[in-house]
């Protein structure tokens, strides 16, 4: 027998009964601590071998670098290990349900990644002669056709780099259209109070003043208040549909008609297009401009915070003002419309927003996704996304306060408030406890119109089993918060870090590493 029958167990010297012992390294098995590259690398090591030989030649004038830059290097194995260890401290869609409301964290198909890496897309220069990049222009043209058709609009500007950049694109087109009409004096943009923060920031950047439009008790825009505010000083409205409370704005067509009659334009924030793709075309609701987050509806990866991509579809009224460049079909081939050839038929363009042509790497991914789903599959996307959200809403409405549960079905996201939690407990405690349950928390404290908002967007790529597990976890955490379970206040307990001191970070900003020994 080689089995230990003596009852001896290895113990750490500091271990006390019932406590987890400390480790020498600070690691906890697969939970690995990792130092900064500045603490493990040095200025001699490199993980890249270049050809031997001398690097003579000096046409640098007197500008050669003399002093060290201070960049640590690591060998390839150390580099791979460093970033692999860091990656394991992140939650991700690949690990589980990521119910961030308004962010549409759906599965990112790997075919998208494979296609974007075809050398014919990834290794092509933006200023290469147009005859040598016909395939790239065709990708842009095909994607543009899908986006215009799915939204029922007239044209699309592909170059905006992200959703907020797309908003800016739409608002600048509105501004240009007003100026062309000689109505540059229209200075007011109406924004519902439930809007994303980018909406007022964008309007203000373009020189508009922003006025809030209140919400009704059922979570929608107060149509009467909005109409009452229309007049000769109003440039337009920015409205999100489905809105940030997860509800469809039933009156949008009516609102659009009123805005148009009063001489304004309708900007729709398309952040939540996933809920209606293939079921509703925003063009049928009177929208003049809408950005589409390719990284939401069309599954391009969020990448830990970008890169995004925010093409903007336009109505006929705003099409002449769309930015440069764009791609046009010419008989057999495709051409770029840029500054030099815009004058012949696109002279009213408001100009260029970015160098080159936009987020091509995201266009290939989005087109791959769209072709995979097709018209029928995209419609199913919206249906399953809405079905999943309603399932979450109805499964939890008796556990958590659901302020708009009686406003009809929700769209792609379900919203709850912190009402009914024990005294001193708030949304953040529920969110942090969900981390311990192995989930990324929902969007917290947004939209502002709901107290302690918890905005849950499951997306269509979650199975029923995954939803059931999430619902069970959220129900359990919510019950504990209602009962005043003190352990929630210190959650998460099992994450790589406990709650972080954000006040300290902001009061004494440490934004770069400095050698404390120096």
């Amino acid at each position, binding site marked *: 027998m080689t089995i230990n029958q003596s009852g001896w167990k290895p113990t750490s010297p500091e271990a006390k009964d019932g406590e987890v012992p400390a480790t020498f390294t600070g690691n906890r098995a697969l939970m690995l601590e990792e130092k900064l590259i500045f603490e493990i690398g040095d200025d001699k090591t490199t993980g890249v071998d270049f050809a031997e030989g001398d690097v003579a030649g000096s046409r640098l004038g007197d500008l050669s670098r003399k002093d060290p830059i201070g960049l640590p290097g690591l060998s390839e194995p150390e580099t791979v290990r460093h970033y692999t260890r860091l990656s394991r401290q992140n939650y991700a869609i690949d690990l589980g349900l990521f119910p961030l409301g308004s962010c549409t964290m759906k599965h990112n198909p790997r075919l998208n990644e494979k296609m974007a890496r075809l050398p014919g897309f990834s290794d092509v220069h933006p200023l290469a002669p147009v005859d040598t990049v016909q395939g790239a222009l065709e990708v842009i043209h095909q994607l543009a056709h899908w986006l215009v*058709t799915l939204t029922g609009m007239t044209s699309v500007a592909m170059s905006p780099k992200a959703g907020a950049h797309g908003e800016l694109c739409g608002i600048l087109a509105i501004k240009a259209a007003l100026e062309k009409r000689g109505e540059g004096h229209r200075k007011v943009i109406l924004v519902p109070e439930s809007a994303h923060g980018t909406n007022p920031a964008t309007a203000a950047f373009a020189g508009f003043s922003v006025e809030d439009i209140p919400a009704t008790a059922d979570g929608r825009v107060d149509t009467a208040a909005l109409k009452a505010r229309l007049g000769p000083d109003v440039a337009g409205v920015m409205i999100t549909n489905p809105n940030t409370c997860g509800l469809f704005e039933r009156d949008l067509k009516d609102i659009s008609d009123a805005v148009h009659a009063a001489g304004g334009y309708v900007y729709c924030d398309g952040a939540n297009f996933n809920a209606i793709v293939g079921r509703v075309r925003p063009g049928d609701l009177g929208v003049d401009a809408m950005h589409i987050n390719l990284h939401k509806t069309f599954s391009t990866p969020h990448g830990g915070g970008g890169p995004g991509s925010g093409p903007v579809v336009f109505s006929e009224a705003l099409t002449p003002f769309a930015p440069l460049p764009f791609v046009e079909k010419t008989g057999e081939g495709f051409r770029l419309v840029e500054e030099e050839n815009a004058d012949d038929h696109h002279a009213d363009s408001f100009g260029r927003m970015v160098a080159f042509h936009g987020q091509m790497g995201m266009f290939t991914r989005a087109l791959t996704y769209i072709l995979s789903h097709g018209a029928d599959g995209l419609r199913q996307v919206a249906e399953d996304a809405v079905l999943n959200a309603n399932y979450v809403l109805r499964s939890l409405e008796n556990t958590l306060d659901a302020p708009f549960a009686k406003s009809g079905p929700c769209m792609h996201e379900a919203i709850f408030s912190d009402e009914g939690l024990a005294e001193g407990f708030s949304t953040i405690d529920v969110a942090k406890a969900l981390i311990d349950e192995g989930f990324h928390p929902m969007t917290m404290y947004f939209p502002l119109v709901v107290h302690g908002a918890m905005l849950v967007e499951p997306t269509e790529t979650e199975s029923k089993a995954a939803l059931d597990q999430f619902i069970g976890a959220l129900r359990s955490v919510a019950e504990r918060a209602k009962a005043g379970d003190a352990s929630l206040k210190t959650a998460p307990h099992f994450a790589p870090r406990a709650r972080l001191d954000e006040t300290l970070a902001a009061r004494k900003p440490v934004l770069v590493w400095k050698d404390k020994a120096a």
Partner: protein
Amino acid sequence: MERMRYLPLTSSDRAEMLSVIGAGSVDDLFVDVPESARLSGPIAGLPDHASELAVERHMTALARKNTVAGDVPFFLGCGAYRHHVPASVDHLIQRGEFLTAYTPYQPEIAQGTLQMLFEFQTQVARLLGTDVANASMYDGSTACWEAIGMARRITKKSKAILSSGLHPHYVSVAKTMAKYTGDTLETGTPVLTAETDIDQMIAAIDGDTSCVVVQYPDILGRIADLTPLAEACHAKKALLIAVVTEPVALGAIRAPGEMDADIVVGEGQSLGVGLQFGGPYVGLMGCKDKYIRQMPGRFCGETVDADGKRGFVLTLSTREQHIRREKATSNICTNSGLCALAFSIHMTLLGEAGLRRMAGINHANACRAADRLAKVPGVKLVNDVFFNEFTLDLGREARPIVRTLAERGVLAGVSLGRLYPGEDALANGLVVAVTETVTAEDIETLAKALAEVLGEVLA
């Protein structure tokens, strides 16, 4: 459609869920859509779903219609550069924990992204020679415009002087935005000479100037000491903004921050990101400490957790749109996270020694190419000094010659006619970039092809 490969719900799941919801059909969930706007079925005229194999065929056919830079002698630059990216970079950025994570708003489960951003900020600040750097911007052109806006907020003045050597797309972006913000921009087109326009800019600075924006190396590949320009700016209480579109250069030449530039922005594409027909790229932005509260974009900062362990969070967000709404420093709501990661990994692999060696090889290759190409009859080298990119005067219009060379399988460079259409004085200019990916044979092939084509044109 019973099942599509990305949609896990089965028909029986759907039925069961509808009964929990208390809805008869999925159509009942869309009752709030006005009847006139409801689509009764898939949109006509668009194809239905397709298999992975079918989609791959379609996309591959499109990709084949493009000339791949790596397949031919390749010399294009002007704001996007072809460098060798080590295999591990692309492998690491495809780890799902990086690729499929969101913005790190829940820092306890996003330390991977946050620590990476902190390292990125430090690498960028050191490379640019600034005190701090942010967590990245969309790209170089938008970062450049954001810097001009930042200078306006700091100086409370709104006249910006843009160097004629600044990338024309960057100028174009700034002009578009300035129409709406009321900034006055002084701009010009470059002259095909060895001298930069630094002296003219120094002469143009006055008490109303908010900033001077200078590209380093500039669009023609020229480089000049920025110290006198910084002094002249500061004497008139204006800021110096330096723009770096080729960060590899900073492995060989002095950093703009070291020459007292106040804000340094750049395009980080060269490291880790690849050409990708123009995007996504990664904007770099650094500045002096005293200006951080006017800087747009995200910052990652160091802090501690409740157990006293070091950790990182997004910070100083009171400048940002989700808190400040219409009073934010910018409407920007994202960075270019995954491209910043690629940049940072590539930089970590290189390290100080690797970056300097890479920069040395770039410069040596460019010197070799410049010497060889200047021997082609009718061709003159415009630059005295350059890093890995220089301008040739072909003695005749360069744009059709670039097209002809492309037909012969040589991507010779960017003609100034493409960048400055209608500017006759620039039409003969060809900007040639030479990185470590260019071989001696490539240079010889270009020289011979150029001689042939020019000979044909001459004849």
